[in-house]
């Protein structure tokens, strides 16, 4: 439940006047707000791809800042794979829809649901294609969105390093790394034809640590899954998988045990590895991150299933 009413007027932390060198979080915040306003102004029908993870939570917060005192004029789109942690969908309803009163579009792959596509039988590749990539493309086309804002950061994965802030997609939502628009200064080429779409990444220049420090500074509301807590887990292929509901299929010899774990990244629970951690406050998470020697995506099976998996998925339209 929301522990604190979301009343923007309550906040009194007015920081504005920069000294000789503006702190980097202020620079990143200002840059992201600029990008979000550019999207609202230059596009007719933009949308925020809202995955309920920490990055889209930060963007949501930045959107509130960008259009304050108005409400963000951009709706949220959640591609619901049906295999999210229950807590995430609860959070979506309680925070984004109810507390902020935003328009939230939820898209589920009907085909996938009817066929019963799941991460256990279909492998992460086919599963992601049916439950995430396809419905995303469908939702963009159905709604005629001409810009889709996402939480991608260039530090996440090697192929992301070359992604533009305003990343052009053709009518089939494909990304062509050889046909990217040069990005000069902060002047973005936002022109597109009907059916074409740009994906926009306001957090491009942020690192995972920046995101967490910003969450701590701004008190950005997040699902509890990011904080350590005893949860039932099984160890599978080197990853700790949380048993979130009765649909979790246990393999021979697997018995859930309770460990103190949390997530660095959230996705579909059967394919998202948790990390053992005692960090139960945001400050402890930031501290843990400062000390960790492992990358954020070590728990993401989807990145590893073959070399350059992410790039291939992106070309096919994955976010």
């Amino acid at each position: 439940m929301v522990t604190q009413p979301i009343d923007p007027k309550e906040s009194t932390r007015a920081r504005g006047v920069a000294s000789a060198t503006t702190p980097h979080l202020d620079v990143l915040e200002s840059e992201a707000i600029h990008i979000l306003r550019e999207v609202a102004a230059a596009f007719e029908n933009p949308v925020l791809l809202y995955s309920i993870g920490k990055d889209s939570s930060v963007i949501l917060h930045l959107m509130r800042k960008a259009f304050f005192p108005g409400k963000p004029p951009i709706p949220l789109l959640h591609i619901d794979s049906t295999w999210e942690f229950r807590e995430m969908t609860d959070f979506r309803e309680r925070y984004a829809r109810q507390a902020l009163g935003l328009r939230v579009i939820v898209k589920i792959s009907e085909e996938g649901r009817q066929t019963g596509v799941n991460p256990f039988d279909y492998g992460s590749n086919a599963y992601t294609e049916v439950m995430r990539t396809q419905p995303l493309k469908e939702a963009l086309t159905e709604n005629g969105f001409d810009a889709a804002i996402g939480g991608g950061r260039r530090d996440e994965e090697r192929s992301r390093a070359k992604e533009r802030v305003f990343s052009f997609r053709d009518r089939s939502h494909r990304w062509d790394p050889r046909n990217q628009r040069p990005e000069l200064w902060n002047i973005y080429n936002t022109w597109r034809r009907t059916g074409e779409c740009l994906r926009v990444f306001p957090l491009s220049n942020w690192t995972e640590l920046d995101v967490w420090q910003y969450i701590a500074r701004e008190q950005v509301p997040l699902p509890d899954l990011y904080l350590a807590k005893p949860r039932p887990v099984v160890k599978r292929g080197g990853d700790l998988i949380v048993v979130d509901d009765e649909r979790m299929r246990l393999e021979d010899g697997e018995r859930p045990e309770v460990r103190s774990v949390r997530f660095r990244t959230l996705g579909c629970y059967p394919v998202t590895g948790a990390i053992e951690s005692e960090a139960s406050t945001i400050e402890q998470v930031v501290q843990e991150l400062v000390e960790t020697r492992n990358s954020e995506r070590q728990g993401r099976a989807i990145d590893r299933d073959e070399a350059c998996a992410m790039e291939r998925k992106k070309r096919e339209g994955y976010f």
Partner: protein
Amino acid sequence: MTSITTPTTRNDLAVKPVEKGLLRFIACGSVDDGKSTLIGRLMLDAGAVYSDQLVSLQVESEKHGTNGGEIDTALLLDGLEDEQQQGITIDVAYRYFATKKRKFIIADTPGHEQFTRNMATGASNVDLAILLVDATKGVLTQTKRHAFIVSLLGIKHVVLAVNKMDLVDYDEGTFETICQEFKRFAAKLEITDLRFVPLSARHGENVAEPSAKMLWHADGSLLHQLETVYTGSDRNLRDFRFPVQWVNRPDETFRGFSGTIASGGIRAGEEIVALPSGKRSRVRSIVTMDGPLEEATAPKSVTLTLEDEIDVTRGDMICRPGNQPHVSRSGEAMLVWMSEQPLQLGRPLWFKNVAGRAICEVESLRYEIDVNSLHRTHAQKLGLNAIGRCSMSFHEPVVYDAYDRNRKTGAFILVDRITHETLAAGMFLEHDMSGESGEGPASFLPARKIKSQVAPELRSQRYGHEPFTVLLTGLPASGKTTIAKQLEQRLFDLGAIGMFIDGEAMRQGISKGLGFSTEERSENLRRGAEVAKLLNDSGQFCIAAFCAPEEAMRQKFVEIVGSHHVVHVHLDASVAACRARDTTGRYVAADNGQIEGFPGVDVIYQKPPAPDYTIATEDRIDVEELAGKVFAPFCRRTNVVANLSEIVFREDSI
């Protein structure tokens, strides 16, 4: 049960690193200079590589590495499948790392043949450039091209990183030779802060930590330079510029203008003007979700509300009435052409800058810069990666500053209206007053300036030097004419075009009829200045020898000719010495009252308080030596006589 985590306290230790500064830099190097190795090494040594990434790096180094099984840090960067498998390079990638002092964003650009476009893209957003040089090869044409583009894009801080010092036995002499050669070249560019670091990226010497193998280098490692370089003064704090990005109007009670402050700052209550309309109002409040601000400065994104209901829309620029940018339907600009389809003059294109967009046409191409020689050439079109100076016209008034005054408001892009391809990056040059001034508040009728059809740059190119004036002043018989004639002869011998004038020459024609009163002397000098200016406008040099006893007269002279073009040399000798060597009898005539108002006799000669150069001619006039002395300073004033210095030193320009 679901809960939403809201942190309650701020942990100082964890939150402390938040207050770091941010440095954006570009790394430029040719294919084999070791750029990837260096960036990979910086990230590795700064602790930006996680251990699972390190494990894969080790595996990959053994498989593909070129470092004999040791870690090959270049492999950290080759991100894309296509790049790995097909060897193609896609332009700019961005890398991130942080130390205790700063967060860094690296614009990583490939050094391939598409370098101009890629480098311009990477360089457009950075504060500093690392130019990588291979110690075994020294300064190459490629290094100079990189330096030129870096300078063109307005980057003030440059670090020349001399890599592969391990291959030259960490030899200080080799490093020094390279530094000196680069310094000579860089003097022609607008680089204000130039640093040098010797290093070995492969072995990590002097990258993050000072190297024990190069104790002779006292300026610290590359990372130390990156952590300590001061970029705060690069920001334009003078000129308040607020491009309106979004009109925030959630309901009838609120109307605000949202945008990112491009430069300068504003306080609540201050008077503002909205351009291009020229309508004035005051800032009522600076609105943010964190509460109202008393003042805000760049680069903050804020929302302004105004006292009056004036009409302001996206694309307008809010400024202070006393400090306004240009509002014009025309402009002069440098273009970096980024498209396979060449520039076509007169074709309507989209223009977009920090404020807004407009339809524009490139009217004429004044010249193209050959990035290999830095020479200006006459060109009919710009092709991919070409750089040229153009005249542009806009279908509606556009608000802008010159790029060298303001990187944010002086930059723009051009976009094809059909394909939507980004065609060019543009940088405005200082406003040309002969252009139409638009309907902004600057729309007074400017005095019509007679503009030559031939661009000054084309003249310079033909004559091999830029026009300039040497003003020689001093007492009668201090040696002005003697020296002036020598200078004229020498410049002529070097192939420069121009001539010498002095007070007497003026009086034979243009100033015929003028006497020797203070007013008439002053008028003679003014006419001399106009002649010098005409000579300069025609692309020629002018050596002007005038007594000019009053400082006000000299200042007037400099003002008429234009301070960029004038070098003032004062010939310093006492009245006694001048009198003693005077063979024309003028001092005697003045003593006898035959000439009135003679400087040094019956009017005071004011010594120039701040000439560019002073040459003592008390004892003797060694013309040879003095001519040399005047030349030497010239050659250092490269912004005036860059090409001349090449002639003087007979130095290959690149």
